[in-house]
């Protein structure tokens, strides 16, 4: 329950950063999607039931902070989580470069799914053109943000004694040494 709430608070914090802080410094396309990084991380690190419930709620939070209707990011993020889950069984999830690759893939898939849903359900006209135009910048922003977060975690990890099974983090702990 504690971790569940922690993820939700982290999600709300990310949404606030994305909607109120990043716009002060970064252009529209260059604002990283921290919630996507959190969801990919959840897919690789958490047990399925907890990851699904948290993803649904994080999708709801993202929908409340963007777009026009509740449900878009709930569906898209759930699809991404399930895809990551399918892939994670065949991948070495403790490899940092792989995590970055997954974030690049996740960004592409998220944009395609958002575009597909908006065109299919909402008849949102030119949205695909807007999405594709912003995609390279979005990709770059997400990779840079993930890289910064990852390097930060890797630096802090020996001090914190991180638990095993964390995506992108090779298992180390204070007790067992590095």
């Amino acid at each position, binding site marked *: 329950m504690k971790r569940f709430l922690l993820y939700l608070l982290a999600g709300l914090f990310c949404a606030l950063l994305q909607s109120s802080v990043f716009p002060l410094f970064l252009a529209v396309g260059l604002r990283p*999607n921290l919630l996507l990084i959190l969801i990919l991380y959840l897919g690789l690190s958490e047990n399925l039931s907890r990851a699904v419930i948290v993803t649904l709620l994080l999708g709801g939070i993202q929908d409340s902070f963007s777009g026009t209707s509740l449900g878009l990011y709930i569906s898209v993020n759930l699809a991404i989580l399930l895809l990551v889950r399918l892939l994670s069984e065949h991948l070495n999830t403790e490899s940092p470069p792989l995590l970055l690759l997954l974030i690049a893939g996740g960004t592409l898939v998220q944009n395609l799914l958002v575009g597909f849903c908006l065109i299919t359900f909402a008849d*949102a006209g030119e949205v695909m053109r807007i999405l594709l*135009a912003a995609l390279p910048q979005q990709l770059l922003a997400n990779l840079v943000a993930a890289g910064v977060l990852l390097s930060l975690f890797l630096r802090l990890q020996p001090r914190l004694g991180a638990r095993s099974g964390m995506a992108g983090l090779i298992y180390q702990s204070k007790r067992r040494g590095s």
Partner: protein
Amino acid sequence: MRKFLNRYRYFLLAVALLLATLMLYSYNLRQKGATTFFERAVLTLAAPLQSSIDASTDYLTDLWKNYLWLVDTRQRNLQLEKENRELRASLRQVEEFRLQNERLRHLLGFVDDIDRPALPAQVIGEDASSWARTVIVDKGSLSGLRDGLPVVSAEGVVGRVIKTAPNSARVLLLTDASSAVAALVQRTRTRGVARGLGVDLSLDYALRKADIVEGDLLVTSGMGGIFPKGLTIGRVTQIKKDEFGLFQEVKATPAADFSHLEEVLIILGEDE
């Protein structure tokens, strides 16, 4: 059958969950006017945090600009004094024009302006995605806001309210791909629909034979019942006419500067 269900239970569960979320999305799309309980709760929870972030940023910016970064202040002061003198002269001229306009409008009996109460609001957040164009303002249902109200700035139309919480509201900007506003070319009264293209606008359904030139001003037509007639939307920047076809392709730049949107006016109620 049971064996099949047992074997593929996780897959079937995942598919069912995905379908359920898509149905939720589809249902909410049909309920466009309504703000869901979940959204209201999240917006209510986030509004004070967003206001605090906005206030802190303003404070830090003021501190930096007014007390720390004072390079070229004297030169700027002299320049501003000069500008001030020029502006005062312009203002007197504008006042003269306003009085003249008032007299002429009275003479023609032409009422093409907003005459409704308006509520000022501050932009406290932007859209969390890269494709949607919405902003969050610091006024909500407690201040009398409801879904569908038009939002304007000094330059022109900004958008309309799409979600309301007690102390905040979400505004769909004119440039969002799902935004459409009934428009008129001011000079020729040619009708069309101004649609968002992310940064610019397109004027759809403008007849190929209609007289539109670059630089023409687009204003709201008053059709559709959301925006009052005569509000500035933007200026035509590009026109493409094919040899065949019913309509011409018209692109326009919005009058409002969405990259520096800080204060907006929300138009309340009906025409007085």
